[in-house]
């Protein structure tokens, strides 16, 4: 399945979370979304958002000042 790419660079929290939330909503369960961010706050906020909404964090990579986070949609409630 294709991974959806979301660019949230330069956005400050909670905007990256909103971008992820709005991107993931229409997708089928099982879809992976990779979001690229520059606000270090996403390291806490995106995993917290995934926990409360029942999605999985597959990978978090830091490359220089960018954070690359891959999320899998596990819940369609």
């Amino acid at each position, binding site marked *: 399945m294709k991974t959806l790419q979301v660019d949230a660079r*330069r956005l*400050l*929290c*909670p*905007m990256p*979370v*909103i971008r992820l*939330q*709005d991107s993931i909503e229409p997708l089928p369960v099982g879809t992976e979304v990779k979001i690229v961010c*520059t*606000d*270090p*706050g996403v*390291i*806490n*906020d995106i995993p*917290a*958002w995934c*926990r*409360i*909404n029942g999605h999985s964090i597959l990978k978090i990579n830091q490359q220089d*000042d960018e954070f690359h986070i891959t999320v899998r949609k596990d819940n369609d*409630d």
Partner: protein
Amino acid sequence: MTRKAAALISGGLDSLLAAKAMQQQGIHVEGINFFTGFCVEGHTHAIRKKDKAKPKRNNALWVAEQLGIKLHIIDIVEEYKDVVINPKHGYGANLNPCLDCKIFMVSKAHQWILQKGFDFLVTGEVIGQRPMSQRKETMPIVANESGAEDLIVRPLCAKNLPPTRPELEGWIEREKMFDFSGRSRKPQMALAAEYGFDDYAQPAGGCCFLTDENYSVKLQDLWTNRGAKKYDIDDIMLLKVGRHVRPSQAFKLIIAREEGETRFLSGYRKQFQSIKTVSHAGPLALVEGATLNPEQIRQACAIVARFSKGKQADQVELSFSPANGEPQSLQVKPMPAHEIPQSWYLV
């Protein structure tokens, strides 16, 4: 049948307790958090290097996790402009349109529950807690003007208010709610202890930049010098950052105060004219306003040099860059501190 409620979650103690009180009555609760662009904590932590060591948790997400509920974060930046620019009920001590803000958010939440098939709304409001928006007289105004009417439940002060439809229908019990009033936080802290919450955001205000006097001065300056009450998301972000110095109506300098702010402002160099010291360590500055003429460029560079390590030097080399253009190099004498009138500083 399990009834469903949407709770407005700010991330503070009151909304945490209000939502918990409904869960205690068997209600399925989900949270709504509105993003206006004026929220305080996450942004300043993200921008300023000195704050990097502080935890950067988003309190609304954290509250939702403590409650075990979903949280829907809703971007209202565009629609919220009308609330900030034309508040029907006016501003508070600064540019805070608290009552209009509350009406707007409850209205949006009411539309949300209608769309999603939820039964009622929950807020953490307490009578007498906020001088503008949380008074006994304002509670019916919020309920009426938002359209939520009797579907808005305020569990922390419900016993001081007329019964709502969820109470009259028997979905929730009035006796299991509370009669808090006034600015004291003791009843909330006691209830938090009873519920087993010992870690929560420090309560009572300060979550919105519009309540901040310095921020409001800068926003008013922006409107005055543009000749119109307008803003976009970049404007309201940049008002949170740096030292703002206005030498004339034509332009303003936003001068980074530390490394984190320099990094943040550098993301705007393609949109704004910018100035950076070359011969000495110093801040990055953005120019907000008109395209500068040569005289204004020298004046702006002299001001920026004043905030560099070369402030005592005879000459400082700086680079001035037009928005998305070729930089030019200048040598200027830093402007002495006493030549910068206090009135230029927007604080």
